[in-house]
């Protein structure tokens, strides 16, 4: 299952924190900064999987290797879009490559909702960000991976606010997360998402 989803920017400022277990606020912050330290030093050519941050690594050593799976979070997957890092912490029951696709769908959904999404949209509409995630994951289990369904689900909860007009400097010139990301990966339809890799 998925233990946490985090979004923070290039400076390590959190934009979304979602822990599927109850965790002290201070510990949450420590974990975020540990992961940021790990992720910020990686070149773009590096793979999208992180070694476990110290907070998680200590306990995972004692896990029993006898069973195929266990409850211990063992996988930290991330993707870097423009100014934002998207992080998913999960157990071994999740597939690493599929999680990469999952993050992609999440970002695509945001892009669809905000039309050329950028970090500012997420700052000012962090409720929508949570709502989008809530359509995809409930309690750490993925409930939806189809882009259309996610977008419809969020829209059903009400109008999605746009970023305040005076916040945007460049208008069309400001490249969003989506624009940057999908150029390389090919923007497919609902079905094409999974063949993106």
């Amino acid at each position, binding site marked *: 299952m998925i*233990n946490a989803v985090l979004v923070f*920017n*290039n400076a*390590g400022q959190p934009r979304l924190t979602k822990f599927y*277990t*109850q965790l002290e606020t*201070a510990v949450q*912050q*420590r*974990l975020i*900064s540990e992961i940021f330290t790990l992720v910020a*030093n990686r*070149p*773009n*050519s*590096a*793979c999208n*999987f*992180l*070694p476990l941050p*110290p907070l998680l690594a200590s*306990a*995972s050593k*004692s*896990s*029993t290797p006898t069973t195929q*799976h266990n*409850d*211990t*979070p063992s996988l930290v997957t991330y993707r870097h879009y*423009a100014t934002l890092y998207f992080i998913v912490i999960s157990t071994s029951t999740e597939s*690493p490559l*599929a999680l*990469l*696709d999952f993050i992609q769908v999440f970002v695509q959904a945001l892009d669809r909702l905000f039309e050329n999404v*950028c*970090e*500012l949209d997420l700052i*000012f509409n*962090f*409720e929508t960000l949570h709502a989008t995630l*809530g359509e995809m994951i*409930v*309690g*750490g*289990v*993925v*409930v*939806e991976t189809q882009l259309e*369904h996610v977008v419809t689900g969020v829209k*059903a*909860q*009400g109008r999605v606010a746009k970023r305040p007009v005076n916040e945007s*400097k*460049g208008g069309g010139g*400001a490249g*969003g997360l989506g*624009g940057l990301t999908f150029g390389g990966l090919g923007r497919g339809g609902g079905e094409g998402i*999974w*063949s993106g890799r």
Partner: protein
Amino acid sequence: MFEKSLYDLIRGLRNHKGSEREYIAESIKECRKEIRSNDMDLKATALMKLTYLEMFGHDMSWASFNVLEVMSSSKFKQKRTGYLAAVQSFRRDTEVLVLAENQLKKDVMSPTPPYIALPLGAIPHVVNPSMANSVLSDLIPRLTHSHAMIRKKTVVTLYRLALVYPETLRPAWPKIKERLLDESEDPSVTAAIVNVVCELGWRRPQDFLPLAPRLFDLLVSGDNNWMAIKLIKLFATLTPLEPRLIKKLLPPLTKIIRETSAMSLLYECINGIIQGGILEAVEGTSEGDDVAKLCVGKLRGMMVIEGDSNLKYVALLAFEKIVRLHPKLVSQQQDVILECIDDPDVSIRMRALDLVVGMVNADNLTAIVGRLMRQLRNAPIASPTHESSNERVRMTEIVPYADDDSDAEEHLPRHEHQSDQPPSLPDDYRISVIKRILEMCSSDTYGNISDFDWYIDVLVQLVRVSPSTRHTSASEEKGDTERSDDVGGGIGRELQNVAIRVKSVRSEAVDAAQSLVLVDRREQMFPTSGNGGQGVLEYAGWLVGEYANYLSRPEPVMTSLLHSNSLQLPSKTLAVYLQAVPKVFSSMAGNDQVSWTPERKTLMSLLMARIIHFLEPLSTHPSLEVQERAVEYLELMRLAAEAASGTAPGTNNGDFTDPPLLLTQAIPALFSGAELNPVAPGAQRKVPVPDDLDLDTPINPNLQHLLSHAETEGFETDEDDVYASYSEPMASHTETPTIVAPAAERLDAPHREPASYQNAVEEEYLDPDIISRRKADRRERYKDDPFYIETEGDRSGAVTPLSRIVRDGNRENNDLDIDSIPIMDLNLERASSSDHVPRARSPRRPTRKVEIMGDENLGPAADNSSREDIVQPRPTRVKKSLLEVDSSGLGSLSLVDDDGSSNRKLTQLDMERKQQEEADMNKALQEVERLRLEMQRASERLHVKEEVAVKKKKRKVRKVDVEGDEPASTPPVEAVGEEADAAPVKKKKKKKVKPEGDIEAGEEADGTVKKKKKKKRTVILDDGEGTAE
């Protein structure tokens, strides 16, 4: 008053660069006011702002009641805000959870889908067993809701319910199964159910076998890749239980591998084939060969594909899973795997490192270790300043800084974080590389090593590339031997092990130890920065002492041991040094073939004076171990110095004058007992308890008297006795030097207690002299004592039956040469059957026959299970990882319809755990009850003593004062509440020290004393309540 929206807050943050802290404090203050207003809009906005700030680490637990208020709003937007705040801020100890339950139940029953979705998403975050029990009945009908979105979320929510309250599955599972089997169900819902089944599946795979046909259909027909991946993962746990599935699964899986365009699905197919044991099942058949070739081929393709390091990473993961079972398949890919050891990406390196440990053999060991060593040597050791680049991050732990909007709007070209030059290796990676090297080399009792000179060189080299250790002083005091970042100790242990087990390279190993100990070579031997690798000194010190006769330069070694730098060493190392000093001394002074000339006398006196000078300050060292050893040897050296000065030297004309016997006989005898051999960790337990061993009779029936006597006696006389016991018999032994120093007599008592004797096994390496002394001392007296194990080095000639067993057992092990160690043969076989592996080893092997001593043991080698619980009793409960969601509760609940079996299926562990939990619960309940009664009594007493009316008034006034600061922590119990009010700002513990409330409230003088008592009790009660919950 001007009210800020969330938008204003964020704007404000961005405009207050540098003074965010003040701005945020101000904003939170405003929120505190706004959230108490009656205007729901204002309340919700304030809550939204708080939730936003919570993301940066600002506590909002105090607002939990307000969260509840907003949750109960009838407007969707406000309700959503409330639910989000609840999810983000509610913790296990949030008190309003009980109240939230009703709200959740109410919203689950709501007629509008978006309203239902809110509690469905929130329940997993806040659920506890009692809440689960209560909302269960409301959730189950939602499984058949007309809206697919509600159905799928309900399924998942029920799963989370089951994690804390496994009984959930009894009513819920049949319904979920019904949904799964319903072919007209919305594909989204089916996929969600599959996700849940996959999570449940690995806990209780047997329960899901009946579903296999439906799951198989879904796999074949499905067009949802995410679901297909989950199904494959699920099948991988099912196939071991139902081998017939393999035949059925293989065609669709290979079809997917060949056809799919999604790399993730392709990878998971391969992974499923590996994990499901399908490779083994079809091994040998032509079909099996094809599958193996297909899988490994694809994995290899992933490794070599350019520019996608993710594939490399996951391929390594997959290889890691097959390496134990199919080393051959993996070793064929050795070339590409070894490349990954040097990959610039640390994640990939780590995976490769894990993998090579599994695939190492005698042929590739040198190459692999060489690669890793090169890596360690070429990368600079990270200096502390390196980490400062992320200082800004660390600050966020407490203070969130203003949003930096310069980045947020424009798309930045991805900026490179690293320059081209090889980065310094992070310390933890460095440590793990060193540990892996040691692990690979020492596996199978050095089965893979053919050249021990090389290994010793490697070890010495490893010391130089060790990262500096952190918190040395702190962890040292704790005596924590397993501290993760002390690799120096690990290297030292290896050096020691090699020196003991491999006699043929002992002198080389001692040479290495000598070079490490020498102070004037310290710069050269150890990394220049930090104190990296110094843990090795503990072992090097032991080696130079124990094998002092192998030393090529004993004088400089002695000088180094006595160097003032040694005083700065950790106490554990210093204690070892102290032990080494007399050993080296005895090898330098113990020669009885050389005449006692004036020069020799001067030299020896000088040497002893230096030793005494070194030891004297240590006799008051804070570490008891150091102190004890220092005192012992100080006395010994003083005696020896006396003896030396009292023995007149002969003239230089060639006549032979006997040196003092104390130097040539007594002191060497302390250290030259039997040879030390490795003992198997479980061997001690196998020593049979003799029938006539009486542990009940007191050793000294007069103990009570002695103790009381000792108490009445002054300290000084006591001390005199101690010294007397040292010196008196010692004097007599200078005349009869064959008997060993009587200090050993003090060890006799502990020897009779099994507990303390058990310790001797662990400390054997550290205290070798104790064992040898004890042996020499007891040789005569305890010939038939089974605790006394004779070793081969024993020259007494008296062979007890027991020692013969030991010796015979040893011989068997000792005769093992490197070629007959099983794993080697295995590898030889495998390697020869594979043409891909270069074979370089065979010609060299027979030229050098290395004898490696195995562990000594009694009877057959201890099986691992019994060994483990002797050596390291494992804690029954493993420490839970931070984010872990414990699903172990599911293990005990059967989902299969034919019930009654569920109870039998409880594993032993579950039973124990349950009993333990029940016992704990009973204990806690009793404790709560006891405290309640006590509190009741206390409050009754209070009522008698004081005028209730006055008191109440007072309390009310104070409460108002306090509320703003910590309303959330107001404890529920009345007496405690009063306590908290009395001292609002202080922490609870402080109250004990500062009973301000007493002075304030205790107007009646006569009540003060009794009240103090009562206060203390309530404090305890408060703690007790906290833990009981």
